[in-house]
Each structure stands twice: as C-alpha cells, then as structure tokens.
C-alpha cells in the first residue's frame, strides 16, 4: 500500500492543474451542443479526452495509463470543470470498435464520434428481451447487398437526437439464440425508423421506443462476423457496467448531503445537530468510503494485470444501489420539501434529488438488473451452479 503518486505522476497532475487554470474559463456553462463540442475539441488537443485513442483515429495516442485517467478525472472534479463528452458512442461503441471493428469502420466512425459530431444510441433491449437479451427478435434478412431490418427496440436512451445506432439484430433464426445475433451500425435517418419518446417516472423522456420497418442497411456495416453479435455486445456491456458503478459520483453526492445537513433546518435546528440524521449520514459515509477504496483496489489490480475476481463483479450492483441510497437520504432529510417537484416554490437543487432518486432506480434496473448482477456474482464470482434450463 502506497497511495502517493510519485514524481512522474505528480508532474502530470501539475500539468492538468495548469490546464485547468489556463483554460478553465472556456468550459461550457449551459447545455449548448456547440459549446460542448468546442470544449471537447480543446480537450482532444490536450489529451484530456480520447487520450488513449490512436492518433490515426483522431485521438491523442497516449499509452493507456489508468493512473493518468484518474488524475485527469480528479483534477477536473476539483476544479469544477466538465469532463469531455460522454455518451454511449464515446464510452461504449468506440472501445468496442477498437477491439473488434474493421480498419475501415475505425477510420470512418471513431474520429467523428470522439469529436462529438456523430452521436450514437444503443439498440439492445426489446419489449420481449430484457434480462434475457439474447432472446431478441428484431431480425435482419439479406436482400442483395443489404440487410432488411424489422422489429422494435426499447429503453433506447438519446435515440431522439442520435445520428447513428449500434444495434443487435437476429440474422440466423435457425441457430441457438446466442449464435444467431449480429451487431450492425446504421444511421437513425434511414427510412423506416420511427422514434417514440418514452416518458418515465421522472416525468421526462430519457428513453425511447424505436420501431424498424424494412430498414435497409448495407451488409458492410456489420461489426464482427454474422452470428457473432453476442460476443461484440458483451464487449460493449463490459464498458457500460464499468461506467455505471463509478464511485466518484457517490463521493460528490455525499459532500452535497453533508452540506445539506449543515444548512437545512427544522424548527430552527440544523439536521446535522440531530443524532438520528448524523447516524444515517455516517452509515452512508462508510459505504461511500468503502466503495472509493474498493475502486482504488480494482484500479491497482488493473494496473498490475491481476484478476480481481469477485471483487470486480460487485461494482455495478453496489455502486448503483449506493447512489440511490444517497438520493433517498436527501429526500428524507428534506421531508415535505422532498416531495416538491417541477419548479415548485421552496424546491431544493432544482429537484435534482427527486429526479436522481427516481432515475437511479432506472440505473439499478438498466445495464443488467440487480438480480442479473447477483446471478453474475454468484455464478462467475462464487462458482455457484446456474439455474437449470427448462426443458423446451
């Protein structure tokens, strides 16, 4: 155990701090896409976005170095600067293409994606294929040089403004379900695609339903071979689960809760002066610290190439659950203020806690439900037997 960075990384840390001091004022303050792209461009030039993507695909071309990534994230958080653009294209498709795409696909898609010029959505879940994703039925048949796609996807975040989709379709209906799937890339402007926003319990449409009717996609737009889409999809899921359990978010939320407990008053008394609220806050603090140190332990295992085993499989389950518990604390601490919403007078933090509490439930379910995570932990992590298959 030695948590000091050492001279090389201390120098890198200084470099990031200098960047923050010099360019921090140029960080985008609202949600304009143009401003986000400009900031992204600046980050790409300095290697603070797409840092390890090879230069020929528009990246910065640095050697993968987990510690450098961590320092960038820490310093950006400390300086209150937004990280580069994220989203399913940058976080999930790009690493998948780097691992499994053809040279032509990498050349065509990675650069515009990391520059934020092409936005992607993910066409995985279907009404009848949730946890049992491999039973998906959206199908593609060959028609001359094209695939002809019919079917429906659901829970497709950002489909309403995405340019492209990476999509799982059944191309080999006669093969066992895991061997009949292909992974296709196509434009959301292709004729035959209809996007219907799906309003969730938050009151907003974070997701969509996407309908495909005779959607024509060139056969060359497949990643991997026909029937190998499941392996490609699993590569993508690995990146998604890494993204969903991030303990730094919990650390940031916890600080806000302490601040809330020190400023909110009931009958003129601060919440933090009540032993009941303090005790609940402390229980959460232990969990937040445990997950942060756990993150450092897994980070070290990645650096040294050691297999963390079951310790690595619990992050999505525990991280998402913890975030939800943090939001739940805020709502209880606010009491009746915690049920206000939608621009009401007396609303705190713009209703973010209420929205997070509900949206986090979506994250507990999405990306592999808590129950699927427990299957993974017990089967892959503890070596317990699978549920026997029903005789069909």
């Amino acid at each position, binding site marked *: *155990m*030695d*948590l*000091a*960075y*050492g001279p090389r*990384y201390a120098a890198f840390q200084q470099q990031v701090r200098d960047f923050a001091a010099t360019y921090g004022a140029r960080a985008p303050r609202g949600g304009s896409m143009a401003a986000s792209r400009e900031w992204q461009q600046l980050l790409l030039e300095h290697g603070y976005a797409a840092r390890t993507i090879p230069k020929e695909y528009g990246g910065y071309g640095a050697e993968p170095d987990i*510690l450098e990534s*961590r320092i960038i994230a820490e310093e950006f958080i400390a300086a209150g600067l937004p990280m580069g653009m994220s989203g399913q294209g940058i976080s999930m498709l790009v690493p998948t293409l780097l691992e499994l795409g053809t040279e032509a696909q990498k050349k065509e898609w990675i650069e515009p994606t990391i520059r934020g010029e092409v936005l992607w959505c993910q066409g995985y879940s279907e009404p009848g294929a949730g946890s049992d994703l491999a039973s998906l039925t959206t199908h593609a048949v060959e028609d001359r040089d094209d695939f002809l796609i019919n079917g429906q996807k659901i829970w497709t975040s950002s489909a309403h403004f995405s340019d492209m989709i990476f999509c799982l379709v059944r191309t080999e209906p006669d093969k066992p379900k895991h061997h009949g799937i292909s992974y296709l890339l196509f434009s959301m402007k292709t004729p035959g695609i209809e996007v219907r926003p799906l309003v969730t319990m938050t009151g907003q449409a974070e997701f969509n339903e996407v309908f495909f009717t005779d959607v024509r996609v060139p056969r060359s737009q497949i990643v991997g071979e026909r029937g190998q889409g499941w392996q490609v999809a699993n590569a993508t899921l690995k990146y998604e689960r890494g993204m969903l359990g991030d303990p730094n978010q919990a650390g940031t939320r916890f600080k806000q809760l302490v601040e809330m407990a020190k400023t909110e008053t009931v009958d003129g008394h601060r919440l*933090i002066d009540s*032993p009941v609220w*303090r*005790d609940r806050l*402390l*229980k959460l*603090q*232990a*969990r937040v*610290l*445990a*997950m942060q*140190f*756990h993150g*450092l*332990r897994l*980070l*070290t*295992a990645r650096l*040294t190439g*050691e297999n963390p085993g*079951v*310790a690595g499989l*619990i992050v999505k*389950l*525990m991280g998402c659950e913890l975030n939800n518990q943090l939001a739940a604390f805020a709502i209880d601490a606010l009491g009746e203020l915690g049920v206000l919403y939608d621009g009401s007078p007396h609303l705190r933090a713009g209703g973010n806690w209420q929205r997070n509490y509900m949206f986090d439930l979506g994250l507990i379910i999405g990306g592999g439900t808590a*129950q699927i*995570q*427990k*299957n993974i*932990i*017990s*089967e892959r*992590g*503890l*070596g*317990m*037997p*699978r*549920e*026997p298959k029903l005789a069909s």
Partner: protein
Amino acid sequence: MDFALTDDQKMMQDTIGRTLERVCPLDRVRKAAADKELYAADVWAALAEVGAAGLIVPEEHGGVGQTLLDAALAAEMLGRSVAPVPFTASCVMAPLALMGSGSPAQQAEWLPRLAAGEAVAGVAVSEIASGARDGAGVAAASGKLSGKALFVLDAGGADLFVVADKAKGLHLVRGDAPGLTRSDLATIDATRRVGELAFDHVEAEPLAARDGAATLGRMIDAGRVVLAADILGAGGRMIEKAVSYAEERKQFGRVIGSFQAVKHLCAEMVAELEPCRSLIWYAAYAFDAAPEEASLMAAHAKAHTSETGTFVARTATEVHGGMGFTDLLGLHYWFKRIGFDRQMMGGPERVRADAAALQGWV
C-alpha cells in the same frame, strides 16, 4: 499509487493461514471451548513461531517491526479459523501502549516477551472505548488504582494488564498484583476471554513517558481496525461455508445453490463484504501513513464491518438451513465470534458517534 498488499504481506498472511489450518481445526476450537481453556496454548505457540505475536513490535524488541495492516491481515486469518488466542489486546493494543507511552525500561521488560508470545497482556479500556456500564471505572490516586474494569480483552491467563483510568491515564498492572481480583466473564464467544478486574488500591506503574490520552486513542483505533479484520475473516469463511453447503445440499431434486433465492443471498453477502476489505486495508494503512485520518477511518471500518458482519453471520446461517443452527456443524463459532467483535471497542452506534465528533459534527 498502489492499493494492494506486498508480496511479503501476502506470504505472511498465507503462512499464518496455513499454520492455523494445521494446528487449529474446528475440533481444536471445540476442545478449547469445552475445557474452558484460557487460550489454546499450542495454537498460540505455533503462531508465535511464525512471528504472529510480534508483528507490530519493533525489531529492537524482538518483533517483526511491521505495520497495522500486517496485524489486520493476521487478524483476518485468526477470525477465519475462529482461533482461541490472545491477539487484539496482547499483540496490538498492549504493545502500542508500551511503544507509545512506555519508558525504555517498561518497553525492554515487556515488549520482547509479548512479541515472543511468552507473556499475555490484557487491555482494560472498555470504559473509554465503549462507555462505562454497571458503574465500571478505574480511579488513579498516588500510584494506586481503585474501582473496576469490565470487558478486559485477552484477560485469560494475562501476565500483565494495561489499564486506562477515568482521566485517560494509562497504567501497567501485574497480573498477580496484591489487591487485584480477576474474574472471567462468560460470553457467547468461547474463543476469546474477557474478564472483569476489581482494583482495591492496586499498585500500578504509570505509562507516562508520553501523553497517555493520545496513546489510548491510538490503541483504540488499532483495536477497532483489528476487530474489523477479525470479522472480515470470520465473515469470509462463513460465506465460503454457505457456498459449499449450497452446492452439496439437494432439495426438490437439485442442489439448493442453483436456486436464485439461495445464490442471491450468497451474492449479497460477498457484495457487502468485499468493500469492507478495501475499507479495512485503507484504515490500517492510514493508521501508519495518514495519522490525521486514522481515527475516522478506524471508526468507519469497525462500524461498517460490524454491520456487514452481522448480516453475513445471520444470512450464512440461513443458507445452511436447520443445520446452521446446530452445534454439530459448528457454524455458530463464527456467528458468535462476529457478534463478540461487533460489541468490543464500541458497537456501531457508539463508534459512529465518535466518527461524528471527529468531523466536528457534534
């Protein structure tokens, strides 16, 4: 940046684990419990031989001169094997008392014997760490102690006691000091000995070479981390036992481990316990490398691992069904070990209250 154990630490932990597997199987634990042994002397001798007793004692006093993290790793193994040996007080807290506030003569007299496992030291700090019950408390006046101390850790067969008085002064009291009445407190956990000490103007040597209150704080921090590590080991072993039982036991024509109702319990246990390991490693590391955070981290490690340990203890027992409840299987030794650890040096509510105070929230 390196959040991991060194090869030496892994090897030390492995050596202690293998020694315990050899000398401390469940039958040996049962015998110690049945015979009300003060501690399992043969197990203790085998552990002392591989250096477990002197892990944190400086080399100049015959120890190994390692960190609290090393002691925590050893404690994890002791919890794993529910080893009936004096460790938390005798090998961690008492040496820290001597190292922190002992005179050179006191250190020279006791540290080498403690490090070799030749002497056992009990620690009487419950009134400070957990709060006084039943009128306990020790008063010091003109070099003599009066009053009583409850829940004295590793009291069985102790040659020496480190005693905290009400004013947080520390004292050394010989096990055979005139006026000292020792009695054993029977607890649910037959693998450790706690005692009650009654003092009637007992001769004591002050541990006053340096500020006693600061040393006392360090002792309690270290004790909390080590007890948390003991829970980690005991809980980890309970999960392993639950998993292997669920893979053998058949009902409805299939092993019960193939039922999600059962295997999800196992997943929940390991998902809760693994982050505790990370928290304990950090708390132990902070004790030596980041003293300003040490008390807070020790408090969190103790409270959170205790909560998790309680969850694991009952859940692993449930996975074993009726068998988990029997003496025959012996799972209850781990269950009770965790229950004991949870309350010593402050139960979760008490320790979290300390954590609040440490952050200026009170």
